[in-house]
């Protein structure tokens, strides 16, 4: 029985180390969003792009581009002040899947402007993609 448990642990560690589940979730989301007529070929092309990006350091195929981030910020800031509250910022990160629920984010008292939000989202996304 020990052998079985240790292999299971080994498998779980492997999944976490290479962030396989996040990668598969992302791939499935892209497939369902784009709905290509030939899913296998499309998946292969996605993975090839990812591999190239990793090797050459060229831009990763981000899921959300700049206009999406701006749109999201505007949704949270209907009055057009230019800033959002810390609570909104945390919720937004959770919804984008860019931070784990228990992660403690420092509320350093600074207001969150659009630029700060954008940079933060990009940095987190880049960190996640780097690990794939």
């Amino acid at each position, binding site marked *: 029985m020990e052998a079985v448990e240790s292999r299971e642990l080994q498998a779980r560690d492997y999944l976490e180390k290479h962030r396989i589940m996040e990668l598969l979730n992302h791939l499935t989301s892209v497939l369902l969003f784009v709905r290509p007529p030939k899913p*296998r070929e499309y998946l292969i092309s996605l*993975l090839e792009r*990812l*591999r190239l990006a990793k090797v050459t350091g060229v831009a990763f195929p981000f899921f959300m581009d700049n206009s999406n981030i701006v749109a999201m910020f505007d949704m*949270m800031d209907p009055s057009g002040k230019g800033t959002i509250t810390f609570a909104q910022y945390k*919720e937004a990160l959770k919804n984008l899947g860019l931070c784990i629920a228990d992660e403690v984010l420092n509320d350093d008292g600074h207001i969150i402007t659009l630029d700060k939000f954008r940079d933060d989202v990009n940095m987190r996304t880049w960190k996640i993609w780097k690990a*794939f």
Partner: protein
Amino acid sequence: MDATSAPHLIPSEMPQYGEANHIFELMQSMLEQLLIHQPQDPIPFMIEHLHRDNDHVPKIIILGPPASGKTTIAMWLCKHLSTNLLTRGNLIGSEFSSVAAEARKHYQKCKKVPDSLLIRLVQERLTEEDCVRRGWILDGIPQTREQVLMMQTLGFAPRHVIVLNAPDSVLIERNLGKRIDPVTREIYHTTFDWPPEAEVQNRLLAPEGISEVETARKLLEYHRNIIRILPSYPRILKAISADQPCVDVFYQALTYVLTSHRSNAPFTPRVLLCGPTGSGKSLQAALLAEKYGLVNVCCGQLLKEAVKDQSKLGELIQSYFDKEMPVPDNVIVKVLKGRLDQPDCVQRGWVLHGFPQDLDQAHMLASLGYSPNRVFFLNMPLDSILERLTLRRVDPITGERYHLMYKPPPTLEIQARLLQNPKDAEDQVRLQMDLFYRNLSELEQFFKQAITVNGDQDPYTVFEYIESGIINPLPKKVF
């Protein structure tokens, strides 16, 4: 943020695309391979896996006692599915492998090959290109539980396991008649499977070890081992009786091997029940809705509800009801779309009955974007329908519904005052049936993957058929 706390509205194209292209199974098989091999670089590994596209190649194990016909079945299946056959004989006889040479030495010394060597041979063979691309059939391996466990640790899992069964006495007798053709290595039998060509007949040899004593000994050992192998393959095992003609065994094996197992993919049933009036559609729909939480969408009910709501559409429908004319298709479609668009239908799935009654209506349903993913045709002969419908009666005072054959009224007094719904009169029923059958062939052609169920049985049997049709994956038509 409001938009994220409210329930997400997922466009219905997404789950439909996922189901149609088997996205879940694709991802699942990729994850399985990743976990078995645990490559250091997952992305190139995944790219290679996707290129290979071998999720559906046959991976079959055939087990059975001596003289059950394993090798014959294995060879026929192999030819039919154009895949590779692996037997102990051809594994040990392989010329290019050092492991095989070692195995041959062992065999010559003590007439047995140790388990570890045998499984290493299997592993070597299964990693070769043609097995990876076209699949494999293992004939008679694994023979012991140790071999099963070794194969599992190496990551080779079959998708179908067939076990042939027959009474021992039959097998002992059968084995006496076994003959082998030394040239083609095919197995023949003096009584059951005699080759037609005379030259083959002349060169047949009796193999060694077919005496009764020998066979009995081998059977004993087989029974001892098989009982510990069977629990290792709980959901993919099928036992087929070998005590029947070869062809029957072959067809059963082939049908089993071509079916896919139930998958864990998320599945929202969108069921369509078609059948003449009186075939039991409403009853089945109600049973399905209750058991699986689906939304029961009955076309007639929907129209009556619209009338009750006194909406604009409802008034329009009422005018048709008053004139006793059938409601036109586009009005029905509008009411239907309104119902199917609601979030509970999209999330929980639906059971539709009473709607597409002819080809045009079916096209309209498809153009709405709501294609059912399971279609059932309930077949019933006219006599049974007549029996079910024309004997229906209602008691006008208590409102209780009776059936003169299946649920007769308890007293003569009640029976005297029973009334019949004019729609249930025999000529009306015949008219409805004719109408249905005129459109049936077109509907059957439109819904190519429909399942036909015999409606002329008791409701729970029909329900079980429908259930198994929904739960199991749709059969792939190969021929």
